[in-house]
């Protein structure tokens, strides 16, 4: 099967398509006519696009054939500085397994149960400061602040310095110059090197103390991570910051946007708050806060009739998998009662599945429980203007979104 003429050469990774929304149409076409698509030339070099749910599952569950290792370029469509960071998201077994196991207990269900009260308290405090009846930026006042506070909580980091953590997260994912927050790669590197020094000092400090249940202490005391080099420490820290920051922040904003776009769903969750857990999974599907993950083929592999060659860059479009109508009928619409709502690919599947998935769900669940306690009426949170998209084909999120709380 070859690509139809209109699809030949198409570059679905172009950030512009994610800004103007044409990505919906582009991926629908690819899923129908060229589900495993080759783009021979782009700003990211040549790469394959995997667009159907079943093929994404295949690639994600065959880590020996599709490597995440930084030495091949890591897990993003773009080969940037951060692809050299030794974080476990861009390692293959057995190194990946060991390093992930060290971080996992911090976000395991029993530890999260202990955090439930604190997350609720901090969420309630943020919501209680919001003005009623006047427009404000939901991203700045709620999503950014809450996720930053959560990171500070997980790291036992001074809460007043929390935006230092989100600054490092933004630095890690930005492309310098292109609407980025720094102009050059050198600026970015210098700032992240300083972050590395700070984390290494903190790591040594926690290693010298009694074990505690924060993430840095757990890593500093775990046999598989306590001897990490400063670069390894920085790699894991940035991974956990990015993983816990951009993603949940944008799902929090997306949750209000989605409820406004689908008012009958908003009404349903107001009438039956027990539907919140399903709504949370559906919002994570609908938003797909990370549009893709990338792998590199370690050998020739056939996927859906196409031969991917050893060394080729392979991009799994989670955003597209979550719009696959064969799995999610009427996929563009929010449906909080979807029977298979948890099969979304936003967390990935296989050995690299998001380690913080339950924390993300917990934060969103608590956010909506607390929203509905204060403002229980359908449509009471009103999106009053455009949600401004992040110019990226990796992070699917919003820079600003004006909201007014109605009476």
């Amino acid at each position, binding site marked *: 099967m070859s690509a139809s003429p209109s699809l030949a050469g198409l570059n679905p990774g172009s950030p512009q398509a994610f800004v103007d929304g044409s990505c919906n149409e582009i991926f629908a076409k690819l899923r129908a006519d060229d589900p495993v698509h080759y783009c021979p030339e782009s700003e990211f070099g040549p790469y394959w696009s995997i667009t159907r749910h079943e093929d994404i*599952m295949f690639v994600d569950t065959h880590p020996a054939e599709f490597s995440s290792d930084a030495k091949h370029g890591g897990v993003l469509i773009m080969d940037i500085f951060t692809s050299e960071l030794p974080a476990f998201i861009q390692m293959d077994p057995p190194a990946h397994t060991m390093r992930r196991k060290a971080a996992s*207990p911090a976000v395991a269900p029993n530890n999260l*149960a202990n955090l439930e009260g604190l997350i609720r308290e901090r969420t309630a405090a943020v919501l209680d400061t919001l003005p009623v009846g006047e427009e404000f930026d939901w991203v700045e006042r709620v999503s950014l602040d809450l996720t930053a506070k959560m990171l500070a909580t997980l790291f036992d980091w001074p809460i007043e310095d929390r935006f230092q953590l989100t600054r490092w997260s933004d630095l890690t994912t930005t492309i310098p110059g292109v609407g980025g927050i720094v102009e050059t790669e050198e600026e970015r590197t210098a700032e992240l090197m300083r972050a590395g020094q700070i984390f290494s000092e903190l790591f040594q400090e926690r290693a010298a103390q009694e074990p505690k249940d924060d993430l840095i202490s757990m890593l500093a005391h775990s046999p598989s991570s306590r001897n990490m080099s400063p670069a390894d420490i920085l790699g894991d820290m940035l991974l956990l910051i990015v993983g816990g920051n951009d993603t949940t922040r944008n799902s929090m904003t997306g949750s209000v946007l989605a409820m406004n776009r689908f008012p009958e769903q908003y009404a349903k969750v107001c009438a039956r708050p027990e539907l919140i857990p399903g709504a949370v999974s559906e919002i994570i599907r609908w938003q797909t806060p990370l549009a893709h993950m990338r792998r590199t083929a370690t050998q020739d592999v056939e996927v859906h009739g196409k031969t991917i060659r050893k060394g080729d860059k392979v991009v799994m479009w989670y955003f597209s998998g979550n719009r696959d109508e064969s799995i999610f009928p009427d996929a563009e619409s929010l449906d909080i009662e979807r029977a298979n709502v948890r*099969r979304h690919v936003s967390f990935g*599947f296989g050995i690299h599945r998001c380690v913080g998935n*339950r924390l993300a769900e917990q934060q969103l669940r608590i956010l909506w429980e607390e929203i509905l306690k204060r403002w229980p009426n359908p449509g009471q949170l009103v999106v009053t203007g455009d949600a401004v998209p992040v110019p990226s084909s990796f992070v699917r999120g919003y820079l600003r979104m004006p909201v007014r709380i109605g009476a």
Partner: protein
Amino acid sequence: MGMVKFIEADGTTHEVEIADGESLMLAATRNLVPGIDGDCGGVCACATCHVHVEPDWSEKLTAMADDEDTMLELTDARDEQSRLGCQITMSPELDGVTVRLPFGQH
């Protein structure tokens, strides 16, 4: 048709009917047994149907494949009795099988 017993971390017991060939994960989610998530739908790709099989039953199970072993490595509190519920399918000799559920799936 057989029976499977799920024991939650807090001791709550659920006995549910299960057809031959059906997986323990599906039997649990179909009956809304708390403590089994089954996010991936049963293809050994998420490890959110982790169970601890009671020792008496372990030897009656089919051997663990490499992919199940790999995914179990991601779970918390893996032990000798750990299996994934989606990889255990019902057969007459497993009628009455008892499994304990972890505190939560991750």
